[in-house]
C-alpha cells in the first residue's frame, strides 16, 4: 500500500565541505573538551615517539618494560578518548535528536562524531609526535651532551614519525567508535517530553 513513487524521495546528503565545517565549528564551540581530548592523544603519541627515539639502553629488561609502558599508555589514552567523546555525545542528546528531526540519518550522526574525533586525532597525533621528538632530544642532550645524536635511535625517523602518527589516529578513531554508535542510535526528539 506504500506508494513511495508519489513522493520523490531523494537521498539526504551534505557536501563534504559543509560536514567538515560543521565538525570544526562544533569543536571550536566546545574548545575546552576538545583540548582535553587533544592532550590525551598528544601525551600518548609523544611518549611513543620518545620511546622510539631515545638512546638505546643495554639492559633488555629495561627495553621490555618501556615497551610495556608504551602499550599501557596507549590503552589509557584510548580509554581517555572514549570517555571524553562519550561525555560529549551524551551531553548533546538534544542537539542530536533535533538534527534527526531535521532529516539527519543515523549514518550522518555516526559519521559526524567520528569526523570530530578524527580531526582531534590528526591534530593531537601530529603535535604529540613533534613534542615527543623534542622531549627525546632534550633528555638525550642532558645525558649525552653534544654526542646526543649518535646516542639516539634516529634511524628511519620519517618512518617512525608516520608510524606514531597513524597509531595516534587509529587510537582516536577506535576510542570514538562506541560513542559514535550511541549517538547514532539516539531517538529523534519526542515532540513532547515528560508525557506518555
Amino acid at each position: 500500500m506504500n506508494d513511495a513513487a508519489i513522493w520523490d524521495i531523494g537521498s539526504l546528503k551534505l557536501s563534504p565541505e559543509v560536514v567538515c565545517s560543521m565538525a570544526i565549528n562544533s569543536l571550536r564551540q566546545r574548545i575546552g573538551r576538545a583540548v582535553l581530548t587533544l592532550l590525551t592523544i598528544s601525551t600518548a603519541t609523544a611518549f611513543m615517539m620518545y620511546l622510539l627515539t631515545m638512546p638505546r639502553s643495554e639492559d633488555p629488561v629495561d627495553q621490555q618494560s618501556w615497551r610495556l609502558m608504551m602499550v599501557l599508555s596507549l590503552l589509557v589514552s584510548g580509554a581517555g578518548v572514549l570517555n571524553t567523546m562519550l561525555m560529549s555525545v551524551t551531553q548533546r542528546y538534544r542537539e542530536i535528536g533535533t538534527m534527526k528531526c531535521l532529516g539527519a540519518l543515523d549514518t550522518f550522526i555516526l559519521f559526524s562524531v567520528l569526523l570530530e574525533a578524527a580531526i582531534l586525532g590528526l591534530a593531537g597525533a601530529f603535535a604529540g609526535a613533534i613534542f615527543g621528538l623534542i622531549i627525546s632530544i632534550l633528555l638525550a642532550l642532558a645525558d649525552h651532551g653534544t654526542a646526543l645524536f649518535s646516542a639516539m635511535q634516529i634511524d628511519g625517523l620519517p618512518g617512525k614519525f608516520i608510524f606514531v602518527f597513524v597509531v595516534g589516529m587509529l587510537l582516536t578513531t577506535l576510542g570514538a567508535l562506541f560513542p559514535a554508535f550511541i549517538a547514532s542510535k539516539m531517538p529523534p526528539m519526542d515532540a513532547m517530553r515528560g508525557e506518555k
Partner: protein
Amino acid sequence: MNKPSDTPTSPPDTRNASLANASSIDDAVEYTVMTRDVVKIYRMGETEVRALDGVDVTIRTGEYISIMGPSGSGKTTLFNAIGGLSKPTSGNVFIDEIDVAQLDANELAWLRCRKIGYIFQSYNIVKVMTALENVTLPMLFGGVPPDEAQDRAVEILKRVGLGDRLLHTPKELSGGQQQRVAIARAFANQPAIILADEPTANLDIHTGEEIIELMKEMNRERGVTVICSTHDHKMLDISDRIIWMRDGKVQRIARRDEVEIEINTMKEKH
C-alpha cells in the same frame, strides 16, 4: 465547552475505499493528515497501557488545529505518531496520502526533513550555530544547494523579523527570538505540516502573543497545515478547529466558531 461527543466531525467512514476514490463532496477537499484507527500500546512491565485507543482524525490542507488534553490523554502519543517519531501499534497515519507507519528509517528521515516542520517548547535550535546556519541546515539536508539555501534562509528570517540578527547565536537571542528562528527553520523546507509542541509555554504573555500571531500569518500566507498542542487560550482563539483528547481517544472536535473561549478572565463564584 464541555460536551463530550463520540463522533468527530470528519467525512464518512471510507475504510474500504482507497483515498483516491472520494465518494462525497467532503472527500474531494484536500486532506493533508488522516489517521485511521490508530492504536498505540506500551508495555510497562506486566501491564499494557493503551496510549491511543483507536484515533480517527482528518485534517485539511491549510488548517490550523489545536490539540488539547490532560496528561495521559494520548495527546503526546498522537503527536509523535503524526510526526513520524514513533510507529503506532496498529492503524494508519497518512500524510499526503503516504502511510508513514510503513516507512523505513531512511524514508522517515526524508519525511521529517521535507514534509514536516517541528517547533518545540524549548526551541531546540542548535546552540553552536548562528540563526542563519540554523535555518539553512534542514535545507542542506534536503539537498538544496548552499547558495540557494542561504538566500532562502535570509528571506525567511527577514519575514519573521530577524533580518538584523542573522549572524547571532542563540546565546545572543532572547527566548522569543529563538522561537522565531525555530519557526523560520520549520517553514524553511516548505513542509506539508508544521507540528508545534506548546510553542508559547516558555514565553511571557506578550512574546507568546507575537509568536502566535506570526504562526497564524505564516499559516495563512503559505497555506501550510499547522497542528499545535497547547494550553494557551490565545492559540485556541486563532485555530480553525480544536481537538480534545481523553484516555487515548478523541473526545471532541469542534470548529472555532462553535466554541466560546475565555481569555484571562475569572468569574466570581456565586
